[in-house]
């Protein structure tokens, strides 16, 4: 595997920003960039019979996407290839959400994030594999087969955005889009040794992101480096009149902020909270050591490390697995065989519905639809859904209280384990626990990021930074400084 920031002469070695500059200067053509990326995908064995990272490719991306930016000033992602998770609507390639029920479906509109990428000059070259409807933490729940971790092909890449994380890890692209409902960007970023960012809820438009659980869903970004991720996020962030939950707060220049903040004493004046609930006694000691080492780097560069508590953290998985399936049970009702997607005839209308949906949805999706239907059904709503929303409010309050107490950022492990072997987790609840450190940020809507902080037996370990609402700039500044401080340690 190639290291971050290695071999600046190769296309893969150029940061997204440098590549954009190179294409703008005419050093490389958009067509060469696309061909290069798809060639690296072939070299890495990213196809369906290999690592199964990419589901669909658009070899014409250069002419299609770059046609739109002819005659205008080159955008910040001019000529930069991007891989997009298969649940983000694109007109140029299918959007199947890793599901039989949408196999072959091509969206008649582009997601807002796709439109913004194009406007910035980016080339959307492929759609990546994912857990069906983003329900999963390993990318094994895809109707099109599991994705394998490019760093260890017998292991999962994490999920549900496993394909996008793997595409960056395999060097196919520097940046990719994923989506998160409970950690589906940060967790695979940690497993694949790349940077993964989940912005504040409402920071990136969800228009065109196929809904799993609307109040928890986010579009997130992967980058080879913090700088790559920052560039990609600031391109797609901002208010969108098509998404009523998107927010109008201005989008700062995350890269400029990060660079200036990380000059000299990177962490001086920064209070980093270490929440005890994320460092339980039974945490893998090697992961604890990597986290402590990262905290030590921050401390040496001026950070104040403070022990803090987010007391309702232990309830997050339970809350998450009530709210997310409840919302999913409604969001997935539209897949009914009437207007698009799979249709299997049966006895009458009800027979058609039941045949279509049972053939179209896989086991995990079926399980969650049933769970969600149950917790919303008459007699159970108050005990489950209402109660979960109340506890969710307490979890959000935990974050507010810590940030209001003068803590700037929180630092935690991203996941309790490194990438596990394919097929290792057959019990659904055990799989759900993969999201134990990440789903809190989705429940509270706060921004969070995973970045590589080291390796255990060659497998990447992710460290997680969490900030207050719309605190992305501080998140990137700290992550950039930590990335610099860790240097080659992140690969050891």
């Amino acid at each position, binding site marked *: 595997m190639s290291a971050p920031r290695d071999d600046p002469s190769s296309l893969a070695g150029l940061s997204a920003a440098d590549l954009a500059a190179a294409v703008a200067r005419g050093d490389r053509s958009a067509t060469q960039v696309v061909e290069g990326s798809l060639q690296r995908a072939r070299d890495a064995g990213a196809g369906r019979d290999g690592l199964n990272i990419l589901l669909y490719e658009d070899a014409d991306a250069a002419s299609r996407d770059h046609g739109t930016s002819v005659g205008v000033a080159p955008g910040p992602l001019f000529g930069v290839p991007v891989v997009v998770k298969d649940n983000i609507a694109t*007109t140029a390639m299918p959007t199947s959400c890793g599901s039989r029920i949408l196999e072959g*479906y*091509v969206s*008649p*509109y*582009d997601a807002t994030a796709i439109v913004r990428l194009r406007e910035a000059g980016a080339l959307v070259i492929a759609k990546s594999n994912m857990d069906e409807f983003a329900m999963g933490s390993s990318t094994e729940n895809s109707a099109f087969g599991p994705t394998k971790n490019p760093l260890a092909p017998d292991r999962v890449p994490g999920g549900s955005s496993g394909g996008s994380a793997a595409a960056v890890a395999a060097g196919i692209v520097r940046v990719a889009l994923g989506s998160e409902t409970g950690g589906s960007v940060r967790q695979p970023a940690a497993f694949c040794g790349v940077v993964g960012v989940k912005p504040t809820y409402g920071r990136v438009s969800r228009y065109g992101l196929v809904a799993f659980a*609307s*109040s928890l869903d986010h579009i997130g970004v992967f980058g080879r480096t913090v700088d790559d991720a920052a560039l990609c996020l600031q391109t797609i962030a901002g208010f969108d*009149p098509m998404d*009523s*939950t998107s927010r109008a707060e201005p989008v700062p220049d995350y890269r400029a902020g990060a660079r200036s903040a990380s000059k000299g004493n990177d962490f001086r004046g920064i209070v980093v909270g270490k929440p005890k609930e994320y460092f339980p006694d039974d945490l893998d000691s090697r992961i604890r050591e990597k986290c402590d080492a990262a905290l030590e780097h921050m401390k040496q560069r001026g950070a104040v490390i403070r022990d803090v508590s987010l007391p*309702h953290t232990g*309830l997050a*998985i*339970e809350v998450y*697995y*009530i709210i997310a399936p409840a*919302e999913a*049970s409604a969001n997935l*009702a539209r897949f*009914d*065989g*009437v*207007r*698009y*997607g*799979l*249709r299997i005839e*049966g006895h*009458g*209308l*009800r027979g*058609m519905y039941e*045949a279509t*949906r*049972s053939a179209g*949805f896989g086991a995990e999706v*079926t*399980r969650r*639809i*049933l*769970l969600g*239907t*149950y917790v919303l*059904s008459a007699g159970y709503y108050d*005990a*489950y859904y*209402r*109660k*979960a*929303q*109340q*506890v*969710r*409010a*307490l979890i959000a309050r935990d974050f507010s209280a810590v940030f209001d107490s003068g803590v700037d950022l929180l630092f935690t492990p991203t996941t309790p384990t490194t990438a596990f072997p394919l097929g290792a987790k057959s*019990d*659904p*609840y055990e799989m*759900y626990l993969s999201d134990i450190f990440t789903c809190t940020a989705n429940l509270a809507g706060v921004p969070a990021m995973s970045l590589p902080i080291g390796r255990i037996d060659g497998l990447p370990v992710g460290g997680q930074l969490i900030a207050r609402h719309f605190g992305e700039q501080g998140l990137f500044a700290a992550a950039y400084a930590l990335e610099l401080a860790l240097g080659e340690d992140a690969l050891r």
Partner: protein
Amino acid sequence: MSVTLDDVRHIASLARLGLSEPRAEALVAELNTILQHMDVLSEVDTSTVADESITSVSGAAPLRLDAGPPIPLARSREAMAPRMQDGFFLVPRLSTHEDLEASS
């Protein structure tokens, strides 16, 4: 609280999911295992949480002008629909007024 086979059949019916008998039986155990973990929530004191915070999204809904143009479609409805004729989506004929009371 625990889920019975009848519960699974009922919610599968509400969700229009066809389940084989063995699958339905297996799901009883799967759902109960998951729901068992959820029972911990009933112990949590949520008396300080106002009812208003039960809505999952904060802020106020933005409003749009009452004007077009409609959002364009890059592909025809016919290209997406499993069965379409004369501009209508076709579904199996309703033999009874099943669910008629559900409309509006």
